[in-house]
């Protein structure tokens, strides 16, 4: 692996949080694919197929190929509430999801591969003690999936593939325990829950059908992975002395569970001629697995936060143009439906449906090396929404206003193959 990519990878590992797609899904699993609207279930072009559709690996031309890539996610949230004159902007953290894929053709019928990628995560930071601080001050969710893969060509038309996913994740979430409680000096009482090294297993399965030289069809299913955080640290800060007479807020641990939902993708690509290729993908993410964010503390307290996400769809379109033997240009668009239902608009993922525009290119540096660049612009319309299920003294207290998000995601990768 080239030295500089190693640096990039290390950088990425240091801060792998991101957030922009519906919920906390991060659809940034390959530069070439992202440039084409993140289509790829039926595009046979690179080792990223380990993620997009493992079965496609057997149709690759290369004997061995590796891709390494990372994105810089600039995701921004603006919030305002006209009734109270509130205006808040998130702190515009930058996150860097990354991925590494390798594929090796054992023989004509069998390929193996390995993928390391970050399909879920979230990083939002609001100014401390902002108006919605009883819901969130900041959150950082990160996950890394490691997926060994094998693919079998059944015949020249049909191939299948898949592999187990080992997922490891971290969560760090801070919020004030309510809207007003402070210690005696006026410092807001808050809790940080933190857990690293959560692990879980899942799987990824795919099917590729090539009814003709020009047409490729693909189906891919990635299973739900339930991330159970057990005995994480719950650090309560600025608890009033009288509230902690028995030390019930000292050395507290927590249990919580967060689903990384299953995703089904079907798609097709069509090679029009030597220059042009078009692709479409349809994703269905089974977000209804995310009903509540329940945090149970070891001191007997708990925090029940209804989320009630709904299953959501994403419609992706991509186009590829071989401009010169060394330069491939790509463009795309996708419409990303938000899984968040009205009234459940929590400021940790305050996102509505988005229109996404992508572009990028690959440039062949040599026979074996190519650079892949991508760019994604995410457009959200502003939306008047609220989270209505926060409880204070047994009564629901709504928090909402006008939200507007956007995102800018440049990405860079390198592909090596022979």
């Amino acid at each position: 692996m080239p030295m500089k990519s190693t640096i990039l990878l290390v950088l990425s590992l240091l801060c792998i949080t991101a957030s922009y797609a519906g919920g906390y899904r991060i659809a940034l699993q390959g530069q070439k694919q992202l440039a084409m609207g993140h289509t790829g279930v039926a595009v046979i072009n690179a080792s990223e197929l380990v993620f997009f559709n493992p079965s496609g690996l057997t149709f690759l031309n290369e004997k061995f190929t590796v891709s390494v890539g990372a994105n810089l996610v600039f995701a921004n949230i603006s919030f305002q509430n006209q009734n109270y004159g509130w205006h808040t902007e998130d702190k515009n953290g930058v996150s860097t999801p990354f991925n590494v894929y390798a594929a090796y053709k054992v023989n004509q019928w069998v390929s193996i591969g390995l993928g390391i990628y970050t399909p879920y995560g979230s990083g939002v930071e609001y100014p401390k003690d902002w108006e919605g601080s009883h819901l969130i001050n900041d959150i950082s969710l990160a996950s890394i999936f490691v997926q060994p893969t094998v693919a079998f060509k059944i015949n020249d038309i049909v191939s299948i593939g898949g592999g187990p996913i080992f997922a490891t994740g971290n969560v760090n979430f801070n919020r004030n325990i309510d809207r007003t409680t402070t210690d005696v000096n006026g410092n807001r009482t808050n809790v940080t829950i933190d857990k690293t090294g959560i692990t879980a297993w899942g799987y990824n399965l795919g099917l590729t059908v090539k009814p003709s030289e020009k047409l490729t069809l693909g189906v891919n299913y990635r299973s739900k992975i339930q991330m159970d955080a057990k005995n994480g640290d719950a650090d309560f800060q600025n608890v009033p002395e009288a509230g902690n007479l028995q030390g019930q807020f000292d050395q507290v641990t927590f249990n919580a569970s967060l689903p990384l939902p299953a995703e089904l993708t079907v798609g097709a690509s069509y090679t029009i001629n030597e220059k042009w290729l078009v692709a479409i993908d349809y994703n269905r993410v089974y977000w209804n697995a995310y009903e509540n964010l329940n945090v149970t503390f070891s001191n007997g307290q708990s925090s029940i936060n209804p989320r009630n996400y709904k299953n959501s769809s994403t419609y992706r379109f991509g186009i590829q143009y071989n401009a010169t033997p060394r330069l491939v240009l790509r463009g795309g668009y996708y419409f990303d439906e938000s899984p968040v239902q009205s009234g459940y608009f929590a400021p940790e993922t305050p996102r509505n449906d988005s229109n996404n525009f992508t572009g990028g290119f690959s440039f062949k540096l040599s026979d074996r090396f190519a650079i892949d660049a991508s760019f994604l612009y995410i457009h959200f319309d502003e939306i008047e929404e609220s989270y209505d299920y926060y409880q204070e003294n047994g009564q629901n207290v709504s928090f909402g206003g006008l939200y507007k998000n956007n995102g800018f995601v440049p990405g860079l990768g390198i592909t090596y193959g022979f």
Partner: protein
Amino acid sequence: MKKYLYTVLAISLSIGCQPEFNDPINEVGFYSSGSADFSNYVAVGNSLTAGYADNALYLEGQLNSFPSMLANKFSLAGGGDFNQPLVSDNLGGLLVNGQQIQGNRLVLEVTAGSQSPVPIEGTPTTDIANHLEGSFNNMGIPGAKSFHLTANTYGNIGNLPAANPYFIRIASSNQATVIGDAVAQDPTFFTLWIGNNDILSFATSGGVGEDQTGNLDPFTYGSSDITDPNVFANLYNEFLKALTANGAKGAVANIPDVTSIPYFTTVPYNAIPLDESTAAMLNQAYEPYNNGLQQAALLGVITDEEATARTINFKAGQNPVVLLDEDLTDLTFINQGLTNMRQATDKDLIPLPVSSVLGTLSDPENPNSVIGVSVPLNDSQLLTASEIELVVTAQRAYNTTIKTLADQYDIAFVDIQGLMNTLAQEGVSFDGGTITNTFGTGGAFSLDGVHPTQRGYAVVANTFIKAINSKYNADLPIVNPGNYPTIFVK
């Protein structure tokens, strides 16, 4: 590779910008100041304007004073900076040259089975000898009565204790007046809320002061006296004349009923629980007194009516406290034991601090010295119906003046009396419930029972905002009381 990365970074940073709303609320023109001009807002008043709560002026309280909340909303409609004379800490006590002259704020101490307001521990760091330079938009001076605002000795440290420690900190000179320092800032908008202490100090002292109605020289008043309503009216007119001389607009607030604050509504008149045998024993002990009353009535020294009103009678259950009422006919010339005792009625008010002595022994050696039962409450421990009448009469006159002058000067009138009565009756609802004037748990009043909590000040601020919006055709957003704390637990 690195070069590409940097290029990508540079591009990204240049376009990674914050999403903009179609109608951003923080842009000029979204909210309107109407015909008012909030560019230089000065608040004039007493502790309520300063942000005083829990028996002290402390940092958090100042930061969430109602004028500070107003200024925060004004800033969305052309308002400028709002400079407050912040104290140094959250303890709230005051020093003068290192000597503590004012106690720390109260916090609720919770121990097994009981909770009580206690001063927070610590040595305060606000020394009034450290004079603050500059001018201050918040000219709320805790303790100030109407006539103090024009007193040119009020900020002179040499004049302690008659001078005011809070004004000493910020007075522009030794001869400065509060109103003078306010007007000198050339405010474009002002709030004036003054007059509360002109009746309140009489009330909280249990009516030990004098009603000075008819005495036009406030410099002869004692600290617990009621200010003459004509003195008040003349001064109020002077204040408004001075504050509006440059064409400034403003808002004035009236004086709430003393009967709407928990200081007087928390301890019930019938605070004495007794069982049947204790009641019988006490009745026996009071029999000589009751018989003496009957004799005095037969002699014609008092009416039968007074004799009945003064007769002490206990029964099983809740019993009215026994008190001394200076307005009753003196009978001690008949018998030393025939003091001015009677039992309280629901027209009498018992100040909050009495709750800590009521039912305790005035002489620890003597089990028959229970305060409020065998030892009557004294004049300073209650506000009798007739004393309340004096307070109400003066308050009515002040409030008539305030309303009349508000109309005359064509400025906004803020009915805080109405707000406080609502708090005392049905409460004021907000998105997290209802706040009421119930002591401790109601949410509106701090642990001193007189001053609002920050949440209470939030509903005060909203009452101002609504009056300002309506008077000046302005369009200011309100504050959310749910975001402000109530009492502080140790």
